[in-house]
């Protein structure tokens, strides 16, 4: 599996001299031509290289299991997915959970709840709890990325399911891990955060539960999610670390934890691309071969 991206020996050098994504598109196209798609190869590719945006949704769908590896059955399965979506939507409509004016994210939320059997009674609609808020944030971001509502719903659903199944155990350890890497990269900032007591109050749920949905703009966010979908939740730690490093000076200026949290929840949206790029570099540096990084 590691041999295939090296099929062109120049690809490694392209990246070295700064031509990112020269060979990737071509090799991805070759990967996508295989009839039973090799999921491992695809996830390795997605870990290693940035995905071209035109194939992103397709790759995500395959990786998340929305589409089967066999390309023959794509249309059939796609039809199933569509029908399922429509059935659920219709049911919800019949049950008056949703109507034509309901925002799509709430439709998705209701659908998700229905499918996971946690749909509250129509009469006992509670104010959305944290979990629902996370779902809504992710679905808002996904809605920006994906145009088709059926795809969007399926992506949200499978993304959240996969995230919880795969990384549900490692999520609580991520703040510790962030602390560790921060101590390696910038101990002064860590000390500062620790001294003002902001360390436990950092927006971990925004970062690790919502996977930065609502924190980064979608263009940057989808690069992070590439890595998450292809099987690494460590990248979240490094994005958070890079955010801290990038705004080090501002953060050092704050002396109260509320200010730090407030700033981190609303970081400026200008150079997030650079932050993500640096974060991916850092991630590859610390986790070495991204194949084995989880």
């Amino acid at each position, binding site marked *: 599996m590691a041999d295939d991206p090296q099929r062109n020996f120049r690809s490694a050098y392209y990246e070295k001299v700064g031509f990112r994504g020269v060979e990737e598109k071509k090799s991805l196209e070759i990967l996508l031509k295989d009839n039973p798609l090799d999921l491992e190869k695809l996830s390795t590719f997605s870990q290693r290289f940035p995905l071209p945006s035109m194939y992103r949704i397709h790759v995500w769908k395959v990786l998340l299991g929305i589409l089967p590896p066999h390309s023959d059955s794509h249309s059939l399965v796609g039809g199933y997915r569509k029908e399922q979506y429509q059935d659920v939507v219709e049911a919800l409509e019949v*049950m008056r959970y949703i109507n034509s004016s309901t925002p799509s994210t709430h439709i998705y939320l209701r659908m998700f709840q229905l*499918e996971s059997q946690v749909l509250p009674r129509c*009469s006992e609609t509670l104010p959305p709890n944290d979990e629902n808020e996370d779902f809504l944030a992710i679905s808002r971001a996904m809605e920006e990325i994906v145009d088709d509502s059926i795809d969007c719903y399926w992506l949200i659903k499978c993304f959240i399911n996969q995230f919880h199944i795969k990384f549900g155990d490692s999520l609580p350890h991520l703040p510790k891990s962030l602390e560790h890497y921060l101590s390696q990269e910038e101990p002064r900032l860590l000390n500062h955060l620790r001294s003002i007591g902001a360390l436990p109050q950092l927006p971990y749920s925004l970062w690790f539960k919502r996977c930065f949905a609502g924190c980064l703009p979608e263009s940057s966010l989808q690069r992070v999610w590439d890595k998450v979908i292809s099987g690494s939740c460590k990248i979240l730690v490094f994005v958070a670390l890079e955010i801290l490093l990038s705004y080090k000076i501002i953060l050092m200026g704050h002396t109260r934890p509320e200010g730090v949290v407030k700033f981190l929840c609303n970081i400026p949206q200008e150079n997030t691309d650079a932050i993500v790029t640096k974060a991916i570099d850092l991630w590859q540096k610390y986790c070495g071969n991204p194949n084995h990084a989880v």
Partner: protein
Amino acid sequence: MSREPLSVSDLLLCLESSELQELERVRTAINQQLNTDRGGAVLSSLVERYLDSSSSQVLLLLSSIREPHHKVLLEKLNEALTRPGNRVAAITLLGHLVRKQPPWVHHVSQAPVLPTLLRCLKTDGDVVVLVSAVLVLVALLPMIPQAGKQHIYDFFDVFGRLASWSYRNPGQVSAAYLVHLHAGVYSLFHRLYGMFPCNFVSYLRLHYGMKENLDTFQEVVKPMLEHVRIHPELVTGTQDYELDPSRWRCCEVHDIIMECCRLSLDPLEDACCPAPLPHLDLSPAPQDWQPISSSGSSVGKLTLSSSHIQANDVTWSPSSQCGLATPPPEPASPGPAPSLSRCTSISGVKCPSPDSVPVTTPSEGSHQPAGVLQVRSGVSVKEQLEDGRYLSSQVKQQPIRAQDETSLSQVISSDLSSPDIRPPSSSSQLLLRTSTASCDDSSTDPAPSHIDPAPYLPGPAPPYEPLFELALPHAAMLFIRRKTQDALESAAGQQQQVEEERSSMSPLKVLEQMIVHGSDAHERLSRRSSAGSRLDRSHLGGPAPQGEELQRSQLLLVHSQLQYERFKRQQHAIRNRRLLRRVINATALEEQTVAMKAQLGVQDQEIRSLRSSLSEEQRRLNQLQQDGRTQTDRLLEQNQQLLLQQQRHQQDNQQLQSDLEDCHGRLRELEAELQGANRKAKHAEQQLTQLGLKLCSSEQQQQQVFLLDQQLVLLRETNRALSQQLDEAAAPSWTEEAMLRRSAGNDFQRLKDCDVLQKQKLEAASHRIAELESQLARKDKLILELKKLLEETKSHSRAELSASESRCVALRRVSQTLQTEMLHLYSQVHLDTHTGSDTCTHSPALDAGSRNSPSTQDGYKPRPSSSSAVGIINGAVEALSSSSPLSASPIDSPLAVGSFLEQQARRLFGPNSQSQEEEEEEEVPAGSPPLGQEVEEATLLTGSPQLEPPPAPAADLELSIRQRRDELSIMDYNESLPEF
């Protein structure tokens, strides 16, 4: 500012104070104010002050004006020039400033003063103004040569106007003024001719080519032309080149003046002509003085006196004439000697050249008593001696102050010594200047009788009349001819001829003579007046009849002329200083040259000595070379001998070597022979030992042969015995053996064939095996492929299946939810009916459930709830809104109802529940055939809901509700099963 003019005027008043310290203080104060002055108020007040009072102190201050203030000053002057009342004073001031040559003088060419001045010259009718202005212009011209570019024709127009004015005299002014004017025009003529010859000559040609100007030309301009040489620029230059400002760039003021003077033939104009032009210098002298001498009777003495006077005249200046103590004028050219000789020749010939014969015959001079000259003849020897002394002094280039002093003393002495003598004449004055003796003698002069015609005829200025005639020579000539016809009859005819031919007299000379006359007249007048006779004054031609006014203006004229002359003298002094510097430099260079020459001699000597030593060295070198050559020869000879010896030795050596080689060869041969002999000896020895061995072996063979013979005999015997035995037994066993052998051979053959057959069979079998094996492998592969395909298909279908499964699950979830919802709705409906029928029984539950609306349970409850149920069954949206907003009241109730329903269901359908547990949700409607009525009702309920609402009657309602409740409870039971 308001205070300053006052203080300035005060200061100006103080300026006239006589106390020196006070004066100094005031002057510094004014200077300070001038320096701080911005608007030019102080300056203008100063100018005004000068224009009012002509104060010399103010003049001093004004002439020290610095650069930024000159504009105001020039403007102020321009303003003053435009006012006729101040014009004279302004021109005088301008003259003073210009002669002072301040650093900003070149700005005058751009200032409006210049055009205004020129306009004055062109339009004004006052002689005083004209004369002083023209003198200012003449002094100014060399300072602003570049102004010629714009104003050249203005200058020429001025010249033309003044020339014609002085000739035609439209203002009818007195002749004395005209003399001044004439002198001014003369100076202007020289200046213009010197600076712009081509333009000027073309202008003259143009202007005087016109008929109406011809008389002016004849009378005024032509005599002037006689006093100049031809300008070299007329040959080489052009009109445009003359006006080019770059032409003057490296010229200083005095250079330009010198240039102008150089072209003049008038000794008064160019008092300082350089040495190369002695003849031109001196030639005017006879011109000037010939008439005087010719007017005299004795010609021989006249020549003497003329030459004498000329020699003196070279050093003459108005200042010396007027008795001013000034630095000495330029020393006369060092060529009096030729002039003297020339003069003597003139005296011999009487008329040297038509040009040089002067025309001017002063009326008085013409009647100048010969006696004077005759008397002077007595002194002539002494004068000549004096001349000689002067000449020597001039050659030595000594300053001629002594001479000036003498002339001054002469003037003084004449003033003292000739108080009561008849009117002075120019010649007498000149004679006075040259010799004191003549003054003394003049007392005996019988001239008075001759003077009559000129001085007494015109009333206003009798003494100047003849001078005017002099200034206008043509008229003068006529006049003289008429006047002196009788007087000259006695004179020689040749003298008449001389008078005819004489040229014009220099206007300067005329002016000078006039001044001298004036001073003489004044002196005598003063004498007379002191004597007391007032009437005589008028007869003596004093200025009294004209009044103080005339006198003053004349004084002004004389003053301006004097200023102009002084300016010229200053320029000459500057030039002299330059020349002196050059002379000093030249002498220094000469001394340097001499020193260099001495050095050269010394070095020559050195070179000579060096040369001699060189030759000595060369000789020694030659000797050494010869020695060396002889030694070399000897050595060469020796060398040859040695070479011969060496050759001989070499030959010997070669011979010996060949001998040696021969010996070696022989030795080698001998050695070879020795070796051959040795070999032979060894060979022989070997043969000997071999022979010994052979002998031994032959002896052994003989013994063996003997033994073998014995064996042979023995064997032969046995052989014979055995062969006898054999012949006896051999024949019967032969056939059996052959048959056996044949059968064995046959068997062998048969077995061999069988073997071949077996082998072939084996091969075929093995072949078959291989074939089968390959088939097997192919099959295996196929099976593998099929397996893979199967696997793929499996995964494929599994994926699809999982998708459809997920869909199924989703559908199940949907239907579950739908059912839940439905149940919920039913429960609501049931609740409604329940509460309607037996509110009492279930009131606690209701109370627990609907805590939110406790007050109106009894009366209100049924209707709204039923209506809401109906609304929901109808599927209409409005029901939701109409019944209760978001069905707020039954929010809490379903749970309670649910629990209640569950209890009921458990109670009623306990045994049934287990059997129906396995049933699918889809089967639920179909899986309850015994409840057909309820199903119908249910379908009725869902399918045709319109029919439902009407059952308002209580009995029907109760029945139907009960049925429904039963049904519902079954449904509820089924539904609630998964929730367990």
